[in-house]
């Protein structure tokens, strides 16, 4: 009985074909909707990336004649003294940016979240630096870092500390640039934490309160664990962003003093557009992409392991 029923509901050969045709036509409509977007991506995103890989094995001349040189570019790169400097700088930049800018948004988000009035106002105020174009922010920061009449040296004057040469002093140039980046980025991160905080149910806090937990304990045992996944993700995004930084050092220090603030992207820019060595610059960009990818994949693996352990 059951078998007969099944047999009856099977498609005939004819209806199978029509079903396939129907699905195909549906797919075609879907691809038609996506086509313009995919074309744009192909032309100015995916094709250039592929071309970058190709160029990294070539000696590219601006007149359009390229010759294959195998791994020459990469061998040259290994002998480039900038290689070590650039990655050391990136590491230092990342450490400074984690130190100066990583916890500030968490702190601010918790403060704003606890406010009963004018929440929206503070959201906008803290978001404002994010919408200021970098090239404009840089001009104002030059004022602030000015060794003679700058704002920051004014603050130090209150404490009787002598004026500092923020952007020219090798020890201060990196943190100074990281400050500018932090100023421009912390608004976005604060908003992300704020939205994450909104998901915590009030009952948790009330239960903690009834159990006599202090405010510090409430933050430690409820707020922070809830924010933890977001914090780990933003950690990675911040490192990725710092390694790719270009505009701030380009406009503020040009990589100086010495090569103190030379970043990978700045070096690539110099090679490609100042010295017109496109092939060599491409080899550098390929390396940069690979490093960033390895970092992201490593993070994903670690993250998956942690989530699995927590689940078990």
């Amino acid at each position, binding site marked *: 009985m059951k078998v007969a029923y099944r047999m009856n509901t099977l498609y005939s050969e004819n209806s199978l074909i029509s079903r396939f045709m129907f699905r195909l036509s549906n797919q075609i409509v879907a691809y038609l909707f996506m086509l313009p977007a995919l074309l744009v991506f192909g032309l100015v995103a995916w094709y250039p990336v592929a071309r970058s890989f190709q160029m990294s094995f070539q000696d590219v001349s601006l007149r359009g004649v390229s010759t294959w040189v195998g791994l020459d570019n990469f061998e040259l790169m290994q002998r480039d003294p900038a290689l070590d400097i650039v990655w050391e700088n990136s590491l230092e930049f990342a450490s400074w940016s984690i130190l100066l800018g990583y916890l500030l948004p968490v702190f601010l988000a918790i403060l704003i979240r606890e406010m009963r009035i004018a929440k929206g106002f503070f959201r906008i105020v803290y978001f404002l630096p994010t919408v*200021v174009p970098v090239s404009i922010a840089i001009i104002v920061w030059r004022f602030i870092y000015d060794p003679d009449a700058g704002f920051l*040296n004014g603050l130090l*004057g209150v404490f009787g*500390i002598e004026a500092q040469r923020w952007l020219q002093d090798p020890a201060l140039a990196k943190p100074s640039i990281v400050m500018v980046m932090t100023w421009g980025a912390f608004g976005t991160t604060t908003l992300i934490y704020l939205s994450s905080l909104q998901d915590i149910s009030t009952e948790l806090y009330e239960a903690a309160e009834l159990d006599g937990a202090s405010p510090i304990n409430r933050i430690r045992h409820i707020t922070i664990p809830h924010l933890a*996944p977001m914090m780990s993700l933003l950690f990675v995004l911040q490192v990725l962003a710092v390694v790719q930084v270009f505009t701030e050092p380009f406009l503020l220090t040009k990589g100086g003093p010495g090569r103190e603030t030379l970043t990978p992207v700045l070096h690539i820019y110099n090679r490609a557009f100042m010295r017109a060595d496109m092939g060599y610059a491409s080899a550098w960009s390929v390396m940069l992409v690979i490093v960033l990818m390895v970092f992201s994949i490593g993070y994903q693996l670690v993250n998956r392991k942690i989530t699995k352990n927590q689940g078990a």
Partner: protein
Amino acid sequence: MNIPLPDFWIAYFFLFWVLVGLTATPVVLRHKGYAGWLGALAGLGVGVIGGAVFMLLLVVLDPITDSLDRPFLGAVISILGGAAIILVLLNVLKNFVPVSGGGIQAVGGPRTPVAYSTRVDKVDPTWQAMQAVRASVVIMLAALTLIPVLWMSMTAFKSRADAVASPPKVIFEPTMEGFISLLTKRRQLNDEQIAEYEQRDDLAWYDEVMLERGQAIIGQSDYVKRLRNSLIIAGSSTILSVGLGLLAAYAFSRFNIPGEGDLLFFILSTRMLPPVVVTIPIFLMYREINLYDTYPGIILLYTAFNLSFSVWLLKGFIDEIPREYEEAALVDGYTRLQAFAKVVLPQAVTGIAATTVFSFIFAWNEYAFALMLTADNARTAPPSIPSVLGTGGIEWAAIAAGSLGFLIPVVLVTFALRRYLLRGVTFGAIRQG
């Protein structure tokens, strides 16, 4: 009147304590049964005294932190230490305030019934007083964050001499000089010509402003062109990326596409790429096909970069629209495209608005691509503002005026969009997490 900078910082810290006094004291006094105005008055007093004590503490702590031999650490320690001491002092002092009206108050509880919905712990007076302190921190930090923007706004209205005054002038006579010199080309006049110009009565107000500086306006500056370029490029690329993004997002949301997840991730990854990686091949490609330094070239690039964002964001919005609406429309004889245009679009308006604004802000502010892929014809304003620095002495007022004018549209747009800020900002993070 000049305010030298160190005084500014003293005023800043002082203001913080006044704010703390003004917000926290009324809370404490209200719980003890005093009238509101008394609390405000006492708050002002507490704030002023608190600020004075803080300054005193800084002076006292100075020799101690000096012995550390680490100036920066010392400064941080004196600020935090001073603040902590005052807060503890205030917290202790608050217990000595006598209860007015015969001590009806239950210990730790609210004095008046709580008629609004809140967390249990939030009605405790100590908590509410601390809340006021926290609010003061948020306000003063916000003020600090805004300093660069405020300073820029002020400089934009300063005269050439005031803009470079050291220490910076806080009070000055506002003038439009900065804006005019940004937008015009001028010629220096000699005394005879100035006298001659002053005789004329066909001068517009901006001519007269510049005449006081001994200059005559002879035409528009390059910056006007840059601004127009920015407008055209940001506008077109926004329209394109939102339009194409809508189509693609609709397809992703409504059809079963094989390998959909991979494709979406691939699209998102273009946003994560370091721009310089694509810039080099694009630079070469654009030179070959004559797109370097043209509108279509840079518009196409911005469109691609915004498209990944707009596909993801819009897909989220379209996912929320029930499928049943369009299915009903399809049954009624609409084609897919009609259903899309007449059913889905009207319901996705908020999503479209949010995406538009974020795309516009990106294209409006973008610096690196514009620097590398445009020269003159299609150059936008952001890379040309710093280059104003180089031409014949630094016109700070003009630079500030340009920056301010450039910033205003974006700020207005952000304000109009404030409800969707969170959504636009969190899209990438939440999708990946």
